């Protein structure tokens, strides 16, 4: 069975640019969550989507936005990139809206902002 897939694997951007990260959940999973993992830290919650609706937002600025598509895949957008946005961005899927239970993570997208 295919797990959570994310693209691209790595990305290098310049300060001020915009980035779009993509995630495909496990087949049958309807909930997608995004997390930011800074080097040496645990993942931090950014967004949760279920059935194309935002169900939760973490403590991140409005430069961060996301959406979920009818096929349950998701995009994370970050505008006006800052050096501090350099991190591993993780997508996690779960079968129901109760996203905390049994969340399965993808391999992540490594974003470097220079």
């Amino acid at each position: 069975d295919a797990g959570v897939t994310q693209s691209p694997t790595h990305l290098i951007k310049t300060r001020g640019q915009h980035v779009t990260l993509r995630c495909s959940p496990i087949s049958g999973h309807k909930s997608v969550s995004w997390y930011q993992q800074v080097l040496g830290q645990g993942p931090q919650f950014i967004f949760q989507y279920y059935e194309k609706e935002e169900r939760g937002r973490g403590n991140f600025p409005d430069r961060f936005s996301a959406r979920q598509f009818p096929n349950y895949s998701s995009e994370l957008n970050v505008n006006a990139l800052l050096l501090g946005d350099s991190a591993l961005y993780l997508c996690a899927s779960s079968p129901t809206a109760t996203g905390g239970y049994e969340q399965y993570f993808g391999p992540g997208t490594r974003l470097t902002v220079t």
Partner: protein
Amino acid sequence: QQQVKQSPQSLIVQKGGISIINCAYENTAFDYFPWYQQFPGKGPALLIAIRPDVSEKKEGRFTISFNKSAKQFSLHIMDSQPGDSATYFCAASPPYSGAGSYQLTFGKGTKLSVIP
């Protein structure tokens, strides 16, 4: 505000030994406590999880011990192997409220090295 505190930051254990990682939480509303294992360059993988209605859960060599009154839980890895060398994260989440946000709060991680 760090809601889940994890210790130690790093741990070195000999092959065959027991690895113990501890976590403490502050939010009494948390009701789901998973442990994740992360290898370099990979996403976290769900290892084992516990609900507060039980004090211990065992899956193979991995055991979670949970102390609700102390608001602490720990991961024990028995017969530790070099292949267990990874970073381990504890996490916690509140119950799903039906319409509100639902998120995992992670500890800062413990880097485990199992030496032959």
